[in-house]
C-alpha cells in the first residue's frame, strides 16, 4: 500500500515535472522569440532612422581650404609710409563652402573667406536645372563670372599662388552679382562637350547695384578627350559688354594732339554709360604620357576698360570721378608638368597685361594724364608643388615681375618687386 502510494506520488511528481518543463519551454521559447524579434525590429528601425538621417546629411556638402604663406619681396614692398617691410606672413585664403542639394535639380551654395583680414562673402547663389531637358541651368546670386578659364579655376587647384594680372585687374573678386543661364546637353548626349553661358550682371562685382545699367556676359566652350583618354582639349570664347554710369560730364580717352600722345578730355552726357567691352579666347590641353600629365593653358583678352586716372581695375563700386577709357590687352600661358605619377609637379607661367595699349614707354607720364594704372607688366613665374597627402600641399613659387620703363614716377625703371611665395595648403 505504502509502495503504491509512493508510486502514485512519483507519477504525480513526474506529471508536475513534465508540466513545469513544458511551461518552462513555452516561457523560454516566448522569451527567446521576444529576444529575437524585438532587437531585430529595433535594429531595423534604428537602421532606417540612420539611413534617413544620413540621407539628409548627404544633401549638405562642406568643403574648404586654408592657404597660409610667407612672401619674400626683393624690396620693402609691404606696408605703407615709413613702416614698410620685405617679408610678410599671411593667411591668403581661408575658405569654407556649404552646398546643399536636396534634388539633382536644385542647389544652394554659400562660400566665405575667413582670414586674419576679416570675414568676406565669396559665393551666394541658387542653381536650378530644368528636370525635363536637363540642359538648362539657371544660376542667380553672387557667383564666378563665366569669362575665360582662369576665373573659374579654383585657387586651391591653381599651380601659381595668384591669378594672372589681367584677370585680377579686369575682373576683381572674380565674382559678380546677377543671373546666368547655362545651356549644356545632358551627359547622355553627344553634344555634352559644348557649353554655353549667358549672364546678366550688375557690373559692380560683388558690391550692390548702383545704376540702371546691366552688363552682358557670354561664353561658349568645349571640352573633349581624344586618343582613348590620352589627350584632352578644351577651350572657349568669351565676351563681356556693359559699363557703369558716368558720374561727370568729362571723359578721357587716349588721343594725339600736336604730336603729343596722351589722355584728352571729351564731353559725355552725365549718367550715360561708360562702356566696358572685353573679348577673350582660351585654350587648354592635357596629355598623359610616361613622364606624367602635361598641361598647357593659354588665354588672350582684349577690349576697352573704363577706369579712373589712377586705376584701370574693373569696377567694384560706382565711379565718383572723371572716367578714363583705356584699350587693354592681356595674355597668359601656363605649362604644368607632373613628374611621372609622383607627388611633385613644376609650373612655368608667363603673363602679360597692358592696361593701355595705345601708349607705351615714356609716352606714359604724368603730364599727359597717365599714372601707374597705365604701366604694362610682364611676369614670369616658376613654381614647384609637393603634395604631402590627399589634403596637404606645399607650393614654392617665384614671380619675376617686369614693368615697362615709363615716364611715371616710380616706373622709370624696372621696380624691385619680385616675389618668392612659400605656401602651405590644407584642403578638405
Amino acid at each position: 500500500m505504502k509502495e503504491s502510494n509512493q508510486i502514485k506520488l512519483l507519477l504525480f511528481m513526474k506529471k508536475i515535472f513534465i508540466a513545469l518543463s513544458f511551461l518552462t519551454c513555452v516561457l523560454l521559447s516566448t522569451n527567446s522569440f521576444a529576444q529575437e524579434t524585438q532587437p531585430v525590429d529595433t535594429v531595423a528601425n534604428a537602421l532606417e532612422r540612420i539611413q534617413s538621417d544620413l540621407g539628409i546629411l548627404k544633401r549638405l556638402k562642406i568643403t574648404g581650404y586654408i592657404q597660409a604663406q610667407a612672401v619674400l619681396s626683393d624690396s620693402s614692398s609691404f606696408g605703407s609710409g615709413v613702416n614698410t617691410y620685405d617679408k610678410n606672413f599671411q593667411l591668403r585664403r581661408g575658405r569654407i563652402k556649404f552646398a546643399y542639394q536636396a534634388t539633382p535639380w536644385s542647389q544652394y551654395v554659400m562660400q566665405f573667406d575667413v582670414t586674419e583680414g576679416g570675414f568676406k562673402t565669396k559665393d551666394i547663389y541658387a542653381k536650378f536645372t530644368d528636370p525635363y531637358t536637363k540642359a538648362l541651368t539657371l544660376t542667380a546670386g553672387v557667383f564666378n563670372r563665366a569669362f575665360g578659364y582662369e576665373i573659374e579655376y579654383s585657387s586651391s587647384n591653381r599651380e601659381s599662388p595668384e591669378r594672372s594680372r589681367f584677370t585680377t585687374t579686369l575682373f576683381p573678386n572674380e565674382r559678380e552679382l546677377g543671373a546666368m543661364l547655362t545651356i549644356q546637353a545632358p551627359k547622355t548626349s553627344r553634344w555634352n562637350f559644348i557649353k554655353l553661358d549667358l549672364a546678366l550682371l550688375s557690373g559692380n562685382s560683388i558690391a550692390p547695384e548702383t545704376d540702371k545699367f546691366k552688363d552682358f556676359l557670354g561664353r561658349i566652350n568645349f571640352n573633349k578627350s581624344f586618343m582613348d583618354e590620352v589627350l584632352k582639349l578644351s577651350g572657349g570664347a568669351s565676351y563681356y559688354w556693359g559699363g557703369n554710369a558716368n558720374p561727370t560730364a568729362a571723359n578721357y580717352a587716349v588721343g594725339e594732339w600736336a604730336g603729343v600722345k596722351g589722355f584728352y578730355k571729351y564731353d559725355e552726357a552725365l549718367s550715360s554709360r561708360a562702356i566696358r567691352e572685353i573679348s577673350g579666347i582660351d585654350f587648354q590641353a592635357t596629355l598623359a604620357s610616361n613622364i606624367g600629365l602635361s598641361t598647357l593653358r593659354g588665354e588672350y583678352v582684349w577690349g576697352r576698360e573704363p577706369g579712373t586716372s589712377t586705376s584701370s581695375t574693373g569696377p567694384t563700386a560706382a565711379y565718383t570721378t572723371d572716367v578714363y577709357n583705356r584699350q587693354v590687352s592681356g595674355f597668359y600661358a601656363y605649362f604644368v608638368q607632373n613628374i611621372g605619377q609622383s607627388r611633385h609637379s613644376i609650373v612655368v607661367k608667363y603673363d602679360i597685361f597692358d592696361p593701355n595699349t595705345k601708349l607705351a614707354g615714356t609716352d606714359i607720364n604724368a603730364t599727359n594724364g597717365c599714372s601707374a594704372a597705365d604701366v604694362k607688366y610682364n611676369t614670369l613665374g616658376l613654381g614647384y608643388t609637393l603634395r604631402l597627402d590627399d589634403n596637404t600641399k606645399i607650393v614654392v613659387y617665384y614671380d619675376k615681375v617686369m614693368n615697362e620703363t615709363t615716364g611715371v614716377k616710380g616706373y622709370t625703371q624696372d621696380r624691385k618687386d619680385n616675389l618668392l611665395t612659400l605656401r602651405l595648403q590644407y584642403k578638405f
Partner: protein
Amino acid sequence: MKKLVYITLVMIVFGSAIQAQKTSFKIKGSDTCLPVILKESEEFMKKNPNTSIMVTGGGSGVGLGALITGTTEVAMASRKMKLDEKLKMQDAAKAFTEKIFANDALSVVVNPSNKIDRLTREQLEGIFTGKTKNWKELGGVDLTIVVYSRETSSGTYEFFKEHVLNNKNFASSVLSMPATGAIIQSVGQTKGAIGYVGLAYIEKSVKALKVSFDKGKTYVEPTVENAKNKSYPITRPLYIYYLKSIEKTVNPFLSYILSAEGQKLVLEVGYVPLK
C-alpha cells in the same frame, strides 16, 4: 603560476603576430568585372586564409571615384580611366597602376521568345537611338521594342555608346538599370526587350544575338572563341586600378589573376583570358 603567466603572454604575442599578418583590401567598381573578380577573390582567399578581400559593384565610374576619394584601394573598370580622373588622382597625391586582366565580348541580348537572332550595328543603332520602335521593322513579330541600358556611371554604357552607337544619343525612352543583373532579369521577363551585357552574364533566361559590323556580310556570335580570334567586333579589355601605396598587399592577388589558374577562372566565368 609563473609558468601560466608566461604561457599566456607568449600566446598573446604569438596571436598578435598572426593577427598582424592578416591583410585586407577592398575592390569596387564595374558590374561587368564583378563576377570574375568575385570568383578570383573567393579562390584566392581559400588559398590565402590570412587575406580578406571585399568586392562590390556599382559601375566603373563609382569604383574609380572611390579610388580617388580613398574609399577603396582597388577599382575594377570596363573602361580606361579618364584624363579628368587621372588629374583628380594627381591632385589627391595618389599614384596608381593600371592592369588589364581579361577581355570581354559585349553581348546584345533579347528575350528567348524573340525570333530575331542577329542584327547589324546599324540596326542596333536604330533600336537604341529610338528610330526603330517595333520588332516587325526588323523582320520580327509585331511587338514594341523595350530597350534596357545601364546608367551613365557604367563603363559598359560608355563603351556601347561609343562603339555601337557611334557616340549618338540613347533614346529618352530607354530604361536605365542600376546593374547588369537587373538587365538580365528585365530582358528575361519582357518579351519585346533588348539590352546589352558582359559575356559572363549570358544565361538561359536571355538570348545573345549575333552581330554584324560589316553591314550584314558576316554575323558573329559573342563567344570566348570569337572574342579570342578577334572576329567578334565588340570586344574590350577589363581593367584593375590599384594604389601604388598598397602594391605589396595587392600584388599576390593580381599575380594569381594573371596566373594560369586565375586565367582559367576568367574562362570559367565566361570572359576571355589574356592568353
